[in-house]
């Protein structure tokens, strides 16, 4: 799962704005707790992914997100003693002790799981749609070398993954008994060090050793920059306002209170529209 420039409005927006947009969606997932509002955030993230041409990649990330969400939901249901409506009595379990699963703990766990899944999806959207080199460039004025080191780290990960796959394949080709894990670890470490030396040499000859602080970046704001910045502000603002106004209220304990009122529906609809509206303008989205 890596960034690739695609013909979408989100990809056309500058990295800082892309970051702000993904962050706004993540903030919404964190501050809202009502199922309808969280559902709207989920639809917004998936809609943004689909509009950016990332359906398949986001679906793959979604598998991990759902798995994480289910784990969170199960753990909450098993360990939480709150809630009045018992739906399963498991009796005495090792470590957990007497365990009754309540409807309230299960629903609250599901909400927590949904929130965790949404955060994963926001992270995936960021990874897929925001140019990491541009993001790190933002930090170069603060700490040039740290930003470049971080870039290198991200660049080296796929290379080292390929190296380790190669090493594993080579061991499958060896006749006789395979080498021990320690021997493999030692060989892999030696490979990594070799790689690191090569990359360090490549950096040196590109002038890294005498790198100077880059000048301030002046780039005109495109329509997509403005649209996604507006969307980010609107999504974050609506979510925080909704939370403050109690529009997305949800109480699980001691008994479930899930009010669905017009205000909450309007909040959800507003979030969805604000998040997806910038994708409607496809002028100048080609790389």
């Amino acid at each position, binding site marked *: 799962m890596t960034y690739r*420039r695609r013909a979408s409005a989100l990809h056309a927006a500058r990295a800082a704005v892309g970051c702000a947009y993904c962050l706004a969606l993540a903030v919404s997932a964190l501050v809202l707790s009502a199922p309808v509002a969280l559902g709207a955030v989920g639809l917004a993230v998936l809609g943004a992914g689909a509009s950016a041409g990332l359906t398949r990649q986001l679906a793959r990330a979604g598998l991990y997100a759902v798995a994480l969400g289910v784990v969170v939901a199960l753990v909450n249901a098993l360990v939480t003693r709150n809630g009045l409506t018992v739906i399963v009595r498991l009796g005495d379990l090792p470590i957990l002790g007497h365990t009754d699963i309540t409807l309230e703990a299960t629903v609250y766990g599901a909400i927590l799981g949904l929130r965790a899944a949404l955060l994963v999806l926001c992270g995936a959207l960021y990874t897929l749609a925001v140019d990491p*080199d541009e993001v790190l460039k933002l930090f170069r004025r603060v700490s040039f070398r740290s930003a470049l080191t971080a870039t290198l780290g*991200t660049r080296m990960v796929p290379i080292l993954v390929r190296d380790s796959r190669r090493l594993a394949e080579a061991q499958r080709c060896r006749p006789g008994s395979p*080498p021990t894990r320690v021997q493999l670890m030692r*060989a892999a470490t030696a490979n990594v060090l070799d790689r690191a030396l090569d990359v360090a040499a490549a950096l040196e000859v*590109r*002038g890294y050793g005498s790198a100077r602080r880059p000048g301030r970046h002046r780039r005109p704001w495109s329509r997509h920059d403005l649209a996604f910045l507006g969307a980010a502000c609107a999504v974050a603002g609506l979510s925080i306002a909704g939370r403050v106004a109690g529009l997305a209220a949800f109480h699980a304990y001691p008994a479930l209170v899930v009010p669905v009122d017009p205000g909450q529906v309007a909040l959800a609809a507003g979030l969805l529209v604000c998040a997806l509206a910038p994708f409607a303008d496809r002028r100048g989205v080609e*790389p």
Partner: protein
Amino acid sequence: MTLLELEAVSYWYPGAAEPALDDVSLQVQPGELIVVAGASGSGKSTLLRTVSGLVPHFHGGRFAGRAVIGGRDTREHGPGDLAATVGTLFQDPETSVVMGTVKSEVALALENLGYSEAAVARGVQETALALGIGHLLGRSTAELSGGELQRVALAAAMAAKPSLLVLDEPTSQLDPVFGDELMATLRRLNEDRDTAILLAEHRLERCLAWADRVLAVDRGRIVCDAEPRDFLAWAMATAPELATPGARLLGRLGLPPVAGVKAARAELRAAGLHPGDGDPEAAPPRPPAARRDRDGLRFDRVWHELRNGPAILQGVSLRVAPGERVALMGANGAGKSTLLRHAAGLMAPTRGRIEGPGQVRLLLQTPTDYLVHETVSAEASPTALQAAGLDPVSFGPRHPRELSVGEKQLVALAVILDGPEPPAFVCLDEPTRGLDRGRKAELARLIVGLPGAVIVATHDPEFVAEFAERVILLGGGRVIADGATAEVLARGAYFATETARILGGAGGALTPEQGAAVLSAREAATTSLAEVRA
């Protein structure tokens, strides 16, 4: 003004007793194109790293003498300071490219040099257009092919418009098509931008024709510094392993060696020997038909289709007979490595099947991946080491990572040959990467002596001509040519030896020895015909 001046430079790597460079003196003028020749471990890379400032600043060790590049003494200026004057390109594009996108990669050197944003943008665009990678600017570096990646690395090295470009075997991991493209790009840069180029290369026939000078390096010393024609004459007399096939062909015919296919043809024409002149060309001898009995390794309509990706192999059907020596050729991405992986059982076909008796052993592209022990003797038995051409007594106690590229390749070969029973089929994937001509000839002899059938995926037609009796050419996952080596390589454009290109495929000659024999026979026939007519 002299662009580069080395005065009595000697250099010892940390802990080394012998110098990697020994009293080297050299001058390079602006716009010169200089090829650096020499065997593996001769000191070529160290010389280039001295010019780029990595020696001694990056590698440490002991340095004597004086190296001045663009008026800057490397004792006072490191590679960062020299980056504006010297652009450097290494052998492996994977580690030459450090950023996530092509645009950022090309921009990095300019940003490091403190260029303004506008100057960076302009430099990136100009360099990308000059090197024909404008369409790649928005792409992630992780998704580029080897050839594309090497061109991006070259663009990154060229972005700051250095006066001197230093390249360490830049085509060793590229197929002939990409390799020739890269060489043409270098030539254009040299001519259009007046960029001086210092190029280390094993396949001299690729670049000698347009070099101004050739430096031959041996044991850290410059043993020859001459124009290509004089260098070839020196190589024929002193270091035959450095002579190009064309030079060897002319030498066998008693003609002075010249660099390049065109010049060699002209030399033959002037001597009245070129097969295109005079009598109609004799038909090439029909090569022996490949043995395709039912006992061999059989690929039966094998497909390998990636999920959400292309079909790497598309219905490949072929047979390799026991004892047959086959070369698998084709451009990068043609499916050669995938085919070998299927043969060895590392991959399973998505359609079709592979059958064959006995064991199939595979040596993948990177020999170090096989070397996981502390000593060579722990990697393979003495018998296997001997079978791979290594002396178990002298090599046994050594650490595998201390060996040269060629020696590592042989130890890895010993690893896969090891075992109670010899393998029925041995597959080698690009075994000549980074090997000099002498090592390649050794490997070819070794392959010919192996007991089982051998399938070698390679880009190197000269190497193929040394060992193969059959060539399978893959293109787009399909077999596009399958025949005797002489039949396939003598008529190829990219996949042809230099001798075949000089002779236009006449007589199916691939090596200088075969070429000389064909021309000598032709000359003898012409002479006797003239005598009969007289």
